[in-house]
């Protein structure tokens, strides 16, 4: 099965949107990045970033893509470590969730001055990774990524190669 790369990219772009609440005076920035990566080697399958003003193929854009690659690798390694962590100590940064009777876990990580949130798309070789500024609350990132995963049911069970 092939990924519909255009629709996947648009979907990731749609996940970047910020919150702007009116019941209380609270708003967030957009996500900095939304990335679909492989759980096997941390390679990036597709990504969207909110700094769209970076000119294409400029040195800045190349740097920011290299940054994303580096962060994706770091998160994938940490995720693998946590997933294989048999000693089930409940931590504040791991949220077991059940989506359409599939189980997965949402992890929150601090990466330098950024907030990262990652979850395996159920039964697949794919991870969804959100990267936001440190002002974006972890609890809200968890809600956001869980809702996004629910919309990715086309990719449940997706296996590479």
């Amino acid at each position: 099965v092939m990924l519909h790369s255009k629709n996947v990219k648009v979907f990731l772009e749609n996940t970047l949107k910020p919150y702007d609440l009116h019941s209380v005076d609270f708003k967030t920035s957009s996500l900095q990045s939304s990335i679909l990566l492989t759980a096997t080697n941390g390679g990036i399958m597709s990504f969207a970033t909110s700094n769209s003003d970076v000119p294409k193929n400029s040195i800045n854009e190349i740097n920011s893509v290299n940054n994303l690659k580096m962060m994706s690798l770091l998160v994938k390694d940490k995720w693998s470590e946590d997933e294989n962590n048999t000693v089930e100590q409940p931590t504040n940064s791991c949220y077991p969730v059940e989506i359409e009777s599939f189980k997965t876990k949402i992890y929150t990580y601090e990466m330098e001055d950024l907030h990262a949130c990652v979850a395996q798309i159920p039964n697949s070789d794919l991870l969804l990774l959100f990267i936001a500024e440190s002002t974006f609350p972890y609890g809200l990132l968890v809600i956001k990524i869980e809702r996004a995963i629910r919309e990715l049911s086309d990719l449940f069970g997706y296996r590479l190669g």
Partner: protein
Amino acid sequence: NIKGTIAFDSHGNVIESTGVGSTRIEDICELSRVALDAEGFAQVQGDSLLVHLYKRDDVTLAVYT
């Protein structure tokens, strides 16, 4: 009357914070241990603030007045 709010989840992670709540995130540790009544409500006071708590669906809202 509202001076600020904090909404936090069962892991003690912030969902939103406003006003004085944004400068008192560390209160979550203590507020998450306050005994709630059968309906999920409680009130605590300290630092010349009255904090109204209400928890539902694993999300606790703290309103500072």
